[in-house]
């Protein structure tokens, strides 16, 4: 900014020092865009003998100088003179001007500090490169994104406070600093724990459907889930609910120990606050915002008290403990009163007292009527009026007795206003009233009086109250201030609200722990052996021991048929509204030991990865319990998920390693390619529409995974029904089969508050893994699936296949529920999660491998069992080790050529299949009659070329054909020459064998673990199949038959055509036999003896 000094020459003509001062002042105003008056310009032009335009220019130049000096903080004499020295002004004028400016500038600067919105002062900055995504919801294909550099500027926070305070022309005071100083520890963000007991039902009470009543703790558990979605402004977020013994519940939430009650108790702080109108306005505004959000989300608080209005370290309101009334179904699921006596609205007194004192006697219909009355959020408006009275009148230890309140309540209509009534109730005399009213701004009094409208019909709701408050503010010429940070920052992302990751390096959070979201911290706290009951005990809130007398009385009462354990809980422990802070110190210490890098992984550079190789060798169960590892996974996944759909490939790669439980729902949605606009799709389905399957769904849901408390909740039943109906309505070619409920349950469990994701996952899961299973007539699909399953058993577990064959035990008898529900019907949820983690990264053939893997795990028992025992065994599946099961399944998957799992009805789009090289459907009967799978020519070629697996090729065509042409490395055992009785006998010690008969078994024994491909021409295909069946029965593994016969390989380069002249020569295979010297014969016999021994030992073990 260049300053022109030329015109300053005219100042020499200034009549007096005062006039010069005035010029400077006007120039300062000019710099603030306040034009000097026309009068002054006239005066100036006359005094300095210049024209008006020059005067204006002079003022403008001077203004520029002042602004420059203030901006550059050059406000002392020396600095000013240095600047002026650049000019060619007379020395006298320079000195005078310098002196005058030096006198006035500090004043100007302070004035600016007070009045102006200034650029916050930059204290520090950090930067990192990150990927920001802009997924377009309406167009899932649009993938626009860019790598951007995130600059984090740490600014002088005080400025904001100052601006706020200034808007009501109050002296500047930064309350958040004071709070930080005074309540350092207490205003920190924490996890809070609230514990209470649900109401017990009499022991054997049943509902009208004959089923036992849902325990109240389960009802609360279900109702609570919705509260997790309440993430409004100025609210402590709910995190989780846990069920303890004896209907005890633990509710965990974000928490701050500092609350308005505390501030009230500290006279010094209280006086600072009560006179800081900017702060008060901010807080009241935030309280109203919080309550407005709650009422918009249909939650009535009822536990309004100064104690439940917490203050964060940033000096913001955080409302706590607002969900108890909601989660306890308006207090019906608990035995204590869910209200605050001091702030209870008049219309609630009578109703609530009826509710709590005589709850055991009230009739059902009556209570429902009461509920709708009671849940009216207008009672919270009254309560806000009450706490404001308490706050402004400084009422610290208000302790009212229920009887007194009731007595007063009867007279409520005698009072001219609710305000007077409350003052009377709180025992405030006229003198105090006058005193407080005198020093309290009329805005607050208006607000309080509005809240305390006795008649609930006339009382405003929160929307009206907020509008009223805004109107008051504008009347008082106080503009709207501090817009909430959270508003308008909605991510258009499939995973909106799903993950919290540190977008900024510091969001006002110095604490390394809170670089993570509250859900993430809670998850890790649990891993760090965080225990709710223990937390209560260490806070002295639970009696850990019972006196023996107590125990005795419990015992004897139980004997008499009284409720068990009734006496264990003393009345006061049923509910204590004090939220206990959960100790996060251990976790924090652990975090501090870790490199900060863990929070900001560089996704592009592999070298930067956390050292995980060792831990990734551990079983999944152990990995899921490792805090450091989970932290690493959480941060990594939150980054990938946050960037979705970019980095999708990398994300899937990580999913193959393992999936952190915290983000399993989102990871699954990614793996299943749930469309980005699933929310729109889901909401467009009319889930109330009556369908023919409603009854079936209704009877199935109350039996679906009911051992799990979440699945047993009424909410879960409603949601499961909605998701299933949506599936039925949106998959019109498919129908509901029993079992679909089980299939859906894991998805709903993981996405309890996001039904659309559950539905999207279910739809795509069925498409990929259970394609066509839910057709109206699915028998062809299922039978083909089971036939292929049989083949895989033969291929991988021939002993079992042979045994099952001998007792005629078919997969149809046991495996339908396995595959129809992808094992969801036979395993508990926690096992399904691990199983599906792996299944979802596999192909549609992977479930078959899981099936074989389960059989493999049970092999020894199954081999000893007859038909009845086998089938009984599957009726109650014994404990299966999922880790091992998954591992085996992967091995099975890898060792089985892809074409062996070919299915006509697999639903996968048939790409351009080569009629010769690839598989083609074969009839179901034929499929069932064959024991071994078929292999495609393409797979044979890739085996021959890539040598990924050991394999042998057995050509069963007659010698004459083989000698004309054959496949490389194939050996010819003409079908006719195979002596099957000898083949069996060859394994029998007592029989004598000739050399030729031994060739095949020896060859097979030599290549025990190789894939054994039987080749024939189309003409002899039946012989190949016959041989395959026989070999499977003889318990040879990895037998398969070339699907289209040798013809399919003829055009390829692994087929060797012999020169025509050789036709009359000895066939090659006979040469092989003739070449058998005595030595090789000996080795063969010893090899055979080994097989013999093995078979004997197997026979013995049976």
């Amino acid at each position, binding site marked *: 900014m260049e300053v022109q000094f030329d015109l300053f020459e005219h100042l020499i003509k200034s009549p007096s020092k005062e006039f010069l001062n005035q010029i400077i002042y006007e120039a300062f105003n000019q710099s603030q865009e306040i034009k000097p008056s026309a009068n002054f310009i006239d005066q100036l032009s006359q005094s300095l003998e210049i024209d008006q335009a020059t005067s204006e220019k002079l003022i403008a130049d001077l203004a520029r100088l002042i602004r420059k000096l203030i901006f550059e903080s050059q406000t002392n004499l020396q600095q000013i003179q240095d600047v002026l020295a650049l000019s060619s002004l007379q020395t006298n004028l320079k000195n005078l001007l310098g002196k005058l400016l030096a006198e006035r500038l500090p004043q100007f600067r302070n004035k600016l500090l007070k009045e102006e919105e200034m650029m916050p002062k930059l204290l520090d900055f950090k930067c990192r490169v990150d990927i920001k995504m802009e997924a377009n919801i309406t167009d899932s294909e649009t993938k626009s994104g860019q790598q951007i550099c995130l600059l984090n500027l740490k600014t002088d926070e005080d400025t904001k406070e100052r601006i706020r305070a200034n808007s009501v022309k109050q002296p500047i005071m930064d309350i958040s600093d004071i709070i930080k100083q005074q309540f350092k520890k207490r205003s920190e963000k924490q996890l809070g724990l609230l514990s209470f007991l649900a109401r017990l039902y009499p022991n054997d009470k049943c509902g009208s459907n004959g089923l036992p009543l849902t325990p109240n703790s389960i009802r609360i558990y279900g109702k609570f889930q919705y509260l997790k979605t309440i993430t409004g402004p100025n609210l402590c977020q709910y995190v989780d609910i846990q069920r303890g013994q004896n209907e005890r519940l633990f509710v965990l939430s974000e928490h701050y120990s500092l609350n308005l009650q505390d501030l009230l108790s500290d006279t010094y702080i209280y006086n600072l606050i009560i006179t800081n109108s900017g702060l008060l306005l901010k807080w009241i505004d935030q309280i109203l915002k919080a309550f407005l959000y709650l009422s918009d989300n249909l939650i009535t608080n009822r536990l309004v008290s100064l104690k439940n209005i917490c203050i964060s370290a940033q000096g913001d309101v955080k409302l706590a403990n607002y969900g108890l009334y909601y989660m306890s179904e308006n207090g019906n699921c608990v035995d204590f009163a869910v209200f605050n006596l001091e702030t209870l609205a008049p219309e609630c007194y009578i109703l609530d007292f009826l509710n709590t004192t005589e709850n055991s006697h009230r009739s059902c219909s009556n209570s429902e009527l009461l509920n709708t009355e009671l849940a009216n959020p207008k009672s919270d408006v009254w309560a806000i009026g009450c706490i404001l009275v308490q706050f402004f009148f400084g009422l610290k230890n208000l302790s009212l007795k229920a009887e007194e309140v009731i007595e007063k309540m009867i007279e409520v209509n005698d009072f001219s206003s609710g305000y007077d009534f409350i003052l009377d109730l709180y025992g405030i005399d006229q003198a105090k009233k006058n005193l407080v009213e005198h020093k309290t701004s009329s805005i607050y009094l208006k607000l309080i009086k509005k809240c305390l409208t006795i008649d609930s019909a006339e009382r405003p709701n929160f929307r009206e109250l907020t509008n009223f408050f805004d109107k008051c503010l504008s009347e008082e010429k106080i503009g709207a201030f501090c817009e909430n940070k959270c508003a308008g920052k909605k991510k258009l992302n499939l995973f909106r609200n799903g993950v919290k990751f540190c977008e900024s390096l510091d969001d006002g959070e110095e604490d390394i722990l809170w670089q993570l979201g509250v859900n993430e911290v809670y998850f890790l706290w649990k891993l760090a052996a965080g225990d709710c009951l223990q937390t209560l005990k260490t806070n002295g809130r639970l009696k850990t021991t019972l006196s023996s007398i107590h125990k005795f009385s419990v015992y004897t009462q139980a004997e008499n048929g009284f409720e068990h354990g009734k006496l264990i809980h003393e009345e006061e422990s049923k509910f204590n509204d004090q939220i206990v802070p959960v100790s996060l110190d251990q976790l924090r210490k652990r975090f501090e030991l870790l490199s900060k890098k863990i929070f900001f992984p560089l996704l592009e550079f592999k070298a930067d990865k956390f050292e995980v190789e060792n831990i990734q060798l551990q079983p999944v169960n152990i990995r899921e319990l490792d805090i450091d590892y989970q932290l690493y996974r959480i941060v990594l996944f939150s980054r990938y998920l946050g960037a979705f759909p970019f980095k999708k490939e990398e994300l899937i790669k990580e999913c193959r390693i393992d999936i952190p439980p915290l983000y399993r729902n989102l990871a699954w949605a990614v793996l299943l390619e749930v469309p980005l606009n699933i929310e729109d799709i889901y909401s467009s389905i009319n889930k109330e529409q009556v369908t023919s399957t409603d009854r079936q769904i209704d009877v199935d849901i109350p039996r679906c995974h009911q051992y799990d408390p979440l699945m047993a909740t009424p909410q879960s039943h409603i949601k499961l029904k909605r998701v299933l109906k949506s599936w039925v309505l949106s998959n019109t070619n498919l129908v509901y089969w029993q*079992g679909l409920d089980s299939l859906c349950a894991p998805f709903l469990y993981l996405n309890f508050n996001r039904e659309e994701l559950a539905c999207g996952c279910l739809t795509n899961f069925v498409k990929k893994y259970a394609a066509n299973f839910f057709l109206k007539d699915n028998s062809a699909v299922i039978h083909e699936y089971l036939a292929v399953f049989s083949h895989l058993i033969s291929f991988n577990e021939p002993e079992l296949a042979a045994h099952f064959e001998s007792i005629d035990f078919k997969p149809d008898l046991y495996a339908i529920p396995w595959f129809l529900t992808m094992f969801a019907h036979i395993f508990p949820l926690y096992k399904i999660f691990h199983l599906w983690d792996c299944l979802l990264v596999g192909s549609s053939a992977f479930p078959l491998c899981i099936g074989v893997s389960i059989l493999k795990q049970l092999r020894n028992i199954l081999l000893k069992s007859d038909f009845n025992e086998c089938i009984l065994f599957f009726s109650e599946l014994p404990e299966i080790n999922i880790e091992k099961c998954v591992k085996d399944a992967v091995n099975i998957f890898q060792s089985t050529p892809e074409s062996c799992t070919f299915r006509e009805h697999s639903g996968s789009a048939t790409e351009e299949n080569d009629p010769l090289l690839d598989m083609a459907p074969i009839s179901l009967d034929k499929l069932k009659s064959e024991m071994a799978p078929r292999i495609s020519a393409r797979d044979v070629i890739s085996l021959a070329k890539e040598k990924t697996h050991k394999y042998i090729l057995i050509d069963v065509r007659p010698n004459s054909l083989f000698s004309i042409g054959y496949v490389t490395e194939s050996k010819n055992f003409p079908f006719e020459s195979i002596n099957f009785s000898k083949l069996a006998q060859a394994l029998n010690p007592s029989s004598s064998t000739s050399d030729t008969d031994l060739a095949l078994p020896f060859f097979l024994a030599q290549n025990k673990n190789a894939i054994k491909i039987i080749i024939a021409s189309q003409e002899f295909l039946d012989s190949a199949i016959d041989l395959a069946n026989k070999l499977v029965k003889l318990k040879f593994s990895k037998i398969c038959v070339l699907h289209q016969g040798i013809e399919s390989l003829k055009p390829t380069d692994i087929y060797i055509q012999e020169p025509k002249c050789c036709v009359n020569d000895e066939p090659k295979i006979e040469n092989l036999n003739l070449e058998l010297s005595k030595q090789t014969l000996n080795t063969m016999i010893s090899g055979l003896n080994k097989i013999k021994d093995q078979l004997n030992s197997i026979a013995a073990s049976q």
Partner: protein
Amino acid sequence: MSSQTRTGSGGGGTVNKTCQFKLVLLGESSVGKSSLVLRFVKGQFHEFQESTIGAAFLTQTIQIDDTTVKFEIWDTAGQERYHSLAPMYYRGAQAAIVVYDISNKETFQKAQTWVKELQRQASPNIVIALAGNKLDLANKRAVSYDEAKQYADEHSLLFMETSAKTAANVMDIFTSIAKKLPKTDLSEQMSRTSQTRSGVNVGSANQNQPATSGCACK
């Protein structure tokens, strides 16, 4: 549980025979088929018995006079869609229990369709019992005892109202079936069984022969 029916076995020098019967349960879903079996086989009751997919198999042995009767029980899925699987379970069965829920009229109608189908397509000598389950919900009864009894009589079915939850009549209905089954003519039973079973998908035929020939009617 089963001790009530163990009357007069052994002891008096009577020859103890063992007979094996295939029994199938049919009926609308959630009428309590699986619960009845669970009560009969294990004496247990689960409030939230999971739905049956495809079919489940259980066995239980009871003593009728001097005969040991072994039931092979096929508990089928109730949903209408699984109907196509049903024939493979009831074909070759010597006994069937058709179950309905006394608090639900529709399930009684469904039971009648099952009876019709069995009488038309199952073995001609099949013993059919009709069980009106959920007797514990008598206060919500939608099907009267007399109505069901009359229907059972007209179609010569065994009839009992049962409750898997309270165990009422559960043992009795299985015992009554066992008593009504022809135990005297076992050779004929066996041959008939193997004949009818030979065409069945479910492979209980082969394994039965060695098992029963070994221990039947000693």
